[in-house]
């Protein structure tokens, strides 16, 4: 579904070019949920920005369903860490934004938005402005305003990062329950190993800068998953330890591969 081939990204920080990503190859299958973890500054977020088409890679190519992607694309949705809701729009119009941009009529897009709002338990807040909502509520709105237009590939950049632990857990469960009926292709960046394992079909670990993919692990925990009790499973523990050892090595030998 999503193929990333030899992606490289350099930034110029002052006079010196910084290599954020060095030759990243990754393939995500249709309907697969892949999480991307790595030490901070390893370029995981940069990779998502490149796939979203908001910035061009320095080298390499990105394909979706066999098609080369240049620039932003209808098939790719991007859910950012900051909710970035439009403060001047009521919740329902924030959620309906993509449909509005696509020229869907007011009544229809509001009906559709209301359906999604209900689905994530925000009914009653349709007319609220973002500043009147809590962080968790805003993040739910941020997620459904992308889901509403059903892009086939959904990129998520630490969407639960700014939330407190309980809210985070309940939103993870909500995301999984939606995804299990939707089965879109998801590439989800996080720095939280627990979250990475709990959500994913596959966990991809990146190295410290310049970012490369160090290892990939399949998560063999059957779905639907009970996100609140995953930690007790031996499979979870085994994978967590393995990933943590690798990550710790990345943190020690900053910029040097141990693989």
């Amino acid at each position, binding site marked *: 579904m999503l193929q990333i081939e030899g992606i490289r990204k350099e930034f110029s920080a002052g006079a010196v070019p910084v290599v954020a990503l060095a030759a990243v190859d990754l393939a995500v299958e249709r309907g697969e949920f892949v999480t991307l973890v790595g030490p901070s500054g390893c370029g995981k977020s940069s990779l998502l920005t490149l796939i*979203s*088409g*908001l910035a061009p890679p320095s080298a390499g190519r990105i394909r979706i369903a066999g098609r080369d992607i240049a620039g*932003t*694309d*209808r098939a*790719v*949705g*991007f859910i*950012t860490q*900051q909710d*970035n809701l*439009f*403060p*001047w*729009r*009521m919740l329902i119009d924030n959620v309906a*934004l*993509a449909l*509005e*941009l*696509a020229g869907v009529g007011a009544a229809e897009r509001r009906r559709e938005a209301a359906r999604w709002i209900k689905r994530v*338990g*925000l009914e009653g*807040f349709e007319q*609220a*402005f*973002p*500043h*009147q*909502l*809590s962080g*968790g*509520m805003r993040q739910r709105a941020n997620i459904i305003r992308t889901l509403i*237009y059903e892009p086939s590939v959904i990129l998520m950049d630490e969407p639960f990062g700014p939330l407190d632990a309980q809210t985070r857990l309940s939103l993870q469960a909500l995301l999984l329950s939606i995804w299990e009926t939707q089965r879109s292709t998801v590439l989800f960046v996080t720095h939280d190993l627990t979250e990475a394992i709990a959500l994913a079909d596959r966990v991809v670990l990146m190295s410290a800068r310049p970012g490369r993919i160090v290892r990939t692990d399949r998560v063999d925990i059957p779905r639907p998953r009970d996100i609140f009790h995953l930690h007790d499973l031996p499979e979870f523990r085994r994978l967590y330890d393995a990933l943590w050892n690798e990550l710790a090595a990345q943190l020690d030998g900053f910029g040097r591969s141990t693989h």
Partner: protein
Amino acid sequence: MTRCGTNWQPSSMASVEAPTEGAAAPNAADPAAPRRRARAPWFSPDNVVSMQVSRILFALVVLGAWQYGADRWFDSFFFSTPLKIFVQVGHELIDPGFYNDLWVTGFEMGVGFAIGAGGGIALGVLLARWAYVAKVLDPFLLALYSIPRVALAPMLIVWFGIGYSSKIFLGATLVFFITFFNTLAGIRSVDKALCDIARVMQATEWQVFMKVMLPAASSWILTSVKISLPFALVGVILGEYLVSSQGLGFRLNTYSTNYNITGAMAIVFLMMVLMLLLTMVTNTIEARVLRWRPKSAAEPVAQA
């Protein structure tokens, strides 16, 4: 000018020529916390009752001293008295000539304001989209802005005659730069992340502009419109005062050249009331249009 808790404009507005101590006052007077009304101690700024009582007392003391001191401490020929002015205001309000002058001034002010604000917003929007031209024009606009507009008045009379248009132009130039600089700054300060959200959703650049940039800049634009409104009046009255045959400025000039200080003071008072009313209207419009903005950090947030 910026007071804790009076969240009435972007802080960077301070960089613009500011008439605004007066314009800001009705807002600053808003009680920050009506909930605490009953329990606030008497000399707390949150105590609404004591605040009103103190204000009335203050006004009475000042006016009383003025009234009492007239022809005791100073010559009432030069300073008039509150009572005389009060009576004169009554005379003005029943004089059809006053309403004619009010209408002329209001008309000139309205047209000048519309042209200035419309032009300022339009050019601000245009240059925000067209960075190259904006940079080319930057020093020239700054230079034009730096001209004391009053100094143009003699030329304006030559160019536009002594009718409406010279007053309209004077009002418009004062309004124009305030709205222009703020519109430009407002659009430039729009969070790129919000634009990116729309771009990922396949928004055209026109849609990004209409649905993200313009609404995001709306608080800047509206605030500049609000603070520039008094300048329209300033420009018009200045123009009328210099050369004209009707308008409040003309009326003021007539009184003062006849040494009728009471009449002049009454007109100044009525101008003040006019401006206060306009400010209240714009505050109401602003509050309505910008109702999406948080009123204060303390505002409760929904939990679910």
